[in-house]
Every structure is written in C-alpha cells, then in structure tokens.
C-alpha cells in the first residue's frame, strides 16, 4: 500500500489530476447540474488550443528553458489559416504552412538560446515581438473573418462518446508524445538535458541538438494550435494568441512540469491545459462571474509552485544532512580502529 502511495507521489501530474477532480467535485457540489458527462467532457473538448500549446512548450520547459513566443506564432498561423479559409482553401495547406512557420520560429529561438547562449526568456520575448509584427503585416492589420466554406464547422463535430474530432486528435498526440518521451532513447534526452546538462554531455547527449529540437517542436505545436484557433473561433484579430503563452506555461506548471527542467511529461501538460481552460466554464456553474478566472488561476499556480519548491528544497536539504551525519556516524564506528593498530 505504501509502495503504491509512493509511486503515485512520484508521478507528478497526479497532483494536477487531483486538482482537476477536486475542481469538478466542488463545482458539482455548488451546482449538481454540472456533474453530467456532457458538461465534463466539454471541459476537455474546449481545451484543444491550450493543450496543443502546452504540449509544445513542455518540450522546451523540460530542457530547462522557456518559450514565450508561442502566443505570437499561434497568432501568425491563425491569421494565415483564416486567410486561406477566406478562399475556402484546404486545411492540409494550412497545416503544411503552419509546420513550416513553426519550424522557422523554433529554429530561430533554438539558435539564439542553444548556440548563442542568450537567456531564453529574453530571446523569446524578442522573437515574440517580431512574430507579432508579422501577424500585423500578414493580415494588414485587419481582423481575418468571414471564411468561405466549412472550416469553422470542423471544431464541434463529435467523433465518439461526445469527444470532438479535434480533441480526439489531441488525445492521440498526447499519447504518442508521451510514448516517445518516455519509451524511446531519444525521447529521454529532453528530460536528461534539463536534469543535468553536464551529465548529459558526458554520456554523449548533445545539449545543442536537444534544445534545438525542443524549440522546433514548440514552434510546430503552437503553429498547429493557431490553425485550430482559427477554425474554432471563425475570426482572427491581430492580437490573437497574445497572453496564451502565459496560460500554456501555467498549464505546464499545474501539470507538474518543473520550470527548472528535468521533470514532467506531456500528460501533465494536457491535464494542466484542461484546468486552465475549464476554470471559467466551472465558474459559470458555480454562479460566480468569469471575472474570478484569473484570480483563481493565479492562486492555483502560486500554490502549486510554492509547495513544489518547498518540498524540493526540503528533500535536498534532508539528503545533504543525512550525508553529513553519515560521515560522523561512520567515524564513531571506526574510531577504535586506529587505536587498535597502535597498540
């Protein structure tokens, strides 16, 4: 029993999941109407954009870096997708362009951070500004709307069990990335680099390549999230996605991904994203205005990171003390030895 508990404790997204369940239950207690399959599943369905963003950025965060340019990247591909949709263009084209844009932005970030060694927050703040400017240039400063065709209809189509096609794809992506990250040799490199980059270099893992790849993945996922965004909302203004990077980071932290790197997985990111996107939905059921949204997110975020930091600090300090105590305990046992030798 204790073993099960311990291994549960070591799965870091469990606390995020418990938070989510608690939130659902609390909402349910305030308003039993909420506790229907349809309502709960819609919380998940609504999290498509956040989940994609959070999965992407989680690769970067696992390596111990950060990427705040994803909001702008998402806005850029959303605008492009919207403009293609205005011509009733094909979603395949949108996705292809999105992937190219994502790789380009990611590569720029990766070179700056991993090659030039610029602090990642500052560098990606810079690319964020530039990409946001590109959004303006691409859309000519106008809101992209009035799509021709059926692009907006994809979003709400249900595949099975009330799950939309979009979310079904997202679930598949979560499972695939989780598998790749935890079950393949290369997948572990992200965590390894964030955990101990000197150690990683020593066993032959290239820190540069790993971070490069992480930024590209982050860019690609953000870009695809942009396409989903365009489809979901049917219009894209020039600030679309602004601030989403912060929500994605918050989702990762809620899902147990440590911002110092080396810990976490994409399931956590996905759970965190559901929390982030369903707070406002739940508030409606509780009867509070959605004005509480940010406050609750902020409190959740701060609580989780502070508790996490304190437990981490505590366990490191404990280990140090134990090690030092062992030294003197050792000498107590061995003290007689030299004396014996002298006699």
């Amino acid at each position, binding site marked *: 029993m204790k073993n099960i508990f311990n291994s549960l404790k070591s799965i870091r997204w469990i606390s995020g999941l418990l938070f989510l369940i608690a939130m659902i239950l609390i909402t349910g207690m305030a308003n039993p109407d909420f506790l229907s399959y349809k309502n709960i599943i819609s919380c998940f369905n609504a999290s498509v954009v956040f989940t994609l963003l959070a999965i992407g950025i989680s690769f970067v965060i696992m390596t111990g870096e950060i990427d705040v340019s994803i909001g702008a990247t998402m806005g850029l591909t959303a605008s492009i997708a919207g403009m293609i949709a205005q011509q009733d263009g094909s979603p395949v084209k949108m996705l292809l362009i999105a992937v190219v844009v994502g790789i380009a932005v990611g590569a720029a970030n990766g070179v700056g951070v991993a090659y030039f060694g*610029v602090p990642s927050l500052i560098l990606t703040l810079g690319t964020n500004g530039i990409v946001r400017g590109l959004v303006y240039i691409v859309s000519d400063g106008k809101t992209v709307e009035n799509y021709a065709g059926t692009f907006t209809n994809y979003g709400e189509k249900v595949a099975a069990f009330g799950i939309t096609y979009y979310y079904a794809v997202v679930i598949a992506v979560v499972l695939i990335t989780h598998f790749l990250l935890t079950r393949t040799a290369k997948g572990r490199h992200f965590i390894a680099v964030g955990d101990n980059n000197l150690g990683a270099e020593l066993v032959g893992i290239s820190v540069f390549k790993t971070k490069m790849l992480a930024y590209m993945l982050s860019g690609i996922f953000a870009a695809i999230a942009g396409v989903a965004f365009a489809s979901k909302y049917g219009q894209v203004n020039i600030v679309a996605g602004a601030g989403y990077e912060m929500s994605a980071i918050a989702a990762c932290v809620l899902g147990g991904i440590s911002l110092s790197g080396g810990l976490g997985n994409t399931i956590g990111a996905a759970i965190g994203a559901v929390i982030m996107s369903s707070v406002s939905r739940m508030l409606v059921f509780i009867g509070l205005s959605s004005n509480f949204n940010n406050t609750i997110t902020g*409190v959740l975020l701060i609580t989780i990171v502070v508790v996490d930091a304190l437990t981490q600090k505590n366990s490191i300090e404990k280990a140090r003390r134990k090690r030092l105590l062992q030294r003197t305990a050792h000498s107590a046992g061995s003290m007689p030895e030299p004396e014996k030798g002298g006699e």
Partner: protein
Amino acid sequence: MKRLRGLLKNWEVILLLLLASEFIIFTLANPKFLNPVSILSSITNYIGICIIALFVTFVMITGGIDIQAPSIIGLTSITIGVLWSDAGFNIWVAVIAAIVLSALCGALSGFFVAYCDVQPMVVTLGGSFLYSGLALLISSMSKTPAYQGISKFPMKTEAGEFVSFRFLGKGTIFGFLPMPVFIYIVLILICWFLLHKTKYGRQIFLIGVNKQAAEYSGIHTKVITMSTYILTAIGASIAGILLTSNVDSAKYDLGSTFTLSIITAVVMGGTLSTGGKGSIFGTALASLIICILRYGLPLCFGVSTQNLDLPVGAMLLAVVVGRAIMGRGLLSKYFKRNLGNKSQ
C-alpha cells in the same frame, strides 16, 4: 583615439549615440518630428514602461525578473477608481490605498521568491494572473461597466488649468514639462541615488553577483531581494496613477501589454539578466530609445502604431545576440570550467 575607444566600451555612451542617431534619422525623414511638445507627450504615453523599467532594473540586478508589474498598473488604476467613484473616498486617500495594496502584492511575490526559493519567473507569472484577476474583481464591484472605465476624476479650475488629481497626469510644470515626465525625472534621480550611491544599492549588486558570498558577508539577502519586488510594485503603482490621471480613465487592464517593452528597456540598458550588473541611466536611456522609436516610426515612416512590437523585438534581439557573439569566447570557457569543477 584611445580615449574614444574607452568611451565606446561604456555602454551608456553607445546608447546615447543610438538615441542621437534616432533623432537625426527621424528628423531627416520628417522635420515635424522635432517638436518638443510631441516628443514630451510621446514620453508621457509610454511613461508606464519608462517608470517600471527603472525598478525592474533593481530586480534584475539581484538576478530575478518581474513580469507582474504591468498587472499592478491596472490594479492601481481600478482601485483608485472604485474607491473614489463608488466608495466615495477622498481621491488622495484612494491613491495612497492603491499604493499600499500594490506594495503588499509586491511583498507577497517577493516573499515567495526570496524566502521559498521559487523561480521569480513563475512567481511573477502567477502574480500577473492573480493581480490582474483582482483588478477585474474590483472593477466588477463598480457601477461603471469594466470596458468603459471610470472617468471624470477631480480636474480643472475655472481657468481651465488641471488641478488636483488630474494635475499629476495632465498638468505641466515650468510651463512646458508635463508632470509625468517631471515625476519620471525625479524617479530616475531617486533610483540612481538608491542603486548607485547607497549601501542598499551596493547590497543589491552584491546579491546579484554572488548570493552565497553576500550571505558570508552578513548581508540580509532575503530581505533585500524581497524589497526589490516591493519597490517595483510601488513603481508600477505610481505609473498606474499617472496613466489613470493622464487619460482620465480607471481601467483594470491598463498597461497589460507592456511586458515586452519593459524587459527590452532593462536588458538593452545594459542590465545582465543573470544579475550583478546594470545601471539606472542605461535603463532610462534605453526606455527613451524605445519611446522615440514608437513615436518616430509611425510619424516618419508610416508604420502602424499597432505594429510597434516588431521593431522593439528586433532591437531586443539585436542587442542580446550581439552581446552573446561578443562574449562567445568567454561562454565556452565558462562551460569548460564548470565541467572541470563538477567532476573534481
């Protein structure tokens, strides 16, 4: 020649040259640019960025970062508005209450950073959610709809001069200097004195250079680290007061888009994001460069005012990547040495 090279090594001189070249280029492109009144009012427009950047310099020198300050602008603004308009407080009491509330917000985040060793980036990210959320909640207590903003603050005399609260944001001093710019200049001097001339400032630098060694020197690293977040929150609050007074509107989301520009100003001003190095004049100059850029580009080159993130972002990248290239040799040495030390 040698002296010239020495001068060029001084980052503030380079910033000054940059600022001068901005003036030259913009004036050549459009002589209308050189209008003191518009230049001063453009600084007034971006006063939030300028003021907060001064204080974020303190935080970054300790090795931290503060991305919550913009949310405190909105919090201050709406607090003043609601206390004054809905609760019927005297406007100055409302102002002081808003400053105290902001300081408490800064203290909370600073406490988590300094005493719990949580990464400043995450704490202030959480703070930006929390405080902007609080601002929204406070705004929902008002009779005025949130999007409209509370207005009609105490204002003009019969003669049409701004007095009372509105004087802070709209009034002028010495006949030409807008009050916000005047206050900004005073704040620059205060911050410069604090950071470069006092024991407090010295301790901030030492903490940023080597926190361990600072503790071995008996410096209260935790108190001082926390205090920089409180100062930044107060700075943001002052910015919020000036903005509210300037546009005669108390809104909860005032200033929410400032983060990029603030960090750009501080980093471009020569502050090391790893801490230990930075200067108030550097930050002030960089803030001015950004203000002038934002004012000049639309006026002289027809760039849309909505698309000013691009040049600011490009400038930030140019500065940080440029510095990285110059320091590249040092960086690889640093890595090597660490590798050596760890496996000793």
